[in-house]
């Protein structure tokens, strides 16, 4: 079961990862990805807006798709919202499985899908003001390798 959560509080990656193996003896691999705020070009803070009514549902759909594709024993997707500072974690994806290939692939899939199908928007705060981040075509390309039509394209 891949658990999903959206929260304003800082992400505790270590706790989420250790929970995937606690009390189990069937897990042979845990792969995790944590995304952090970078202080690029004088960035002071990053604010994540989301669509609350849709977010958890979109994440649950993404998690269910990963579970259908790979034999995972567990997983966790945690996305932070609100204002955060350079060095703080924005997102955690962690997947456990018996063998490494499923954990690596499911984790990459979850991130690629999350980037293109979950309703979050980043705005960057610098000394000169605040700007919205523009979506990258490379994210659509990354999602396309899982043979999915990007949900956002017409």
């Amino acid at each position, binding site marked *: 079961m891949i658990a999903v959560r959206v929260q304003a509080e800082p992400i505790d990656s270590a706790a989420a990862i250790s929970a995937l193996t606690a009390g189990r003896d069937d897990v042979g691999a845990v792969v995790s990805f944590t995304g952090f705020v970078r202080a690029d070009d004088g960035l002071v803070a990053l604010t994540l807006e989301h*669509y609350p009514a849709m977010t958890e549902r979109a994440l649950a759909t993404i998690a269910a798709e990963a579970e259908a594709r790979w034999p995972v024993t567990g997983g966790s997707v945690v996305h932070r919202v609100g204002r955060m500072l350079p060095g703080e974690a*924005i997102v955690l994806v962690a997947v456990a499985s018996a063998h490494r290939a499923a954990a690596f692939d499911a984790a990459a899939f979850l991130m690629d899908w999350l980037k293109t199908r979950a309703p979050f928007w980043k705005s960057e705060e610098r000394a000169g003001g605040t700007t919205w981040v523009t979506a990258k075509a490379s994210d659509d390309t990354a999602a396309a390798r899982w043979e999915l039509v990007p949900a956002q394209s017409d």
Partner: protein
Amino acid sequence: MIELVYFAWVRERIGVDGEILPLPPGAATVGDLLDWLATRSPGHAAALSERAAIRVAVDQSFVCFDAPVTDGVEVAIFPPVTGG
């Protein structure tokens, strides 16, 4: 009635988080709805003029502009997502 909700720069340009409006007569698709909304104010026009930069969800699912829109739905309008 339909419930419209706006996010990111779409919300900023329109100037409100959302609005509840009667479904305009003759609006059968999401595209029709966007055309009508763009005529409501200069802010709406500014938010919706660049159609290639607009994404829409009806009842919390992504849809294309030719998707039907019916009375009672929630229509969310926003830029391409940038989370993760």
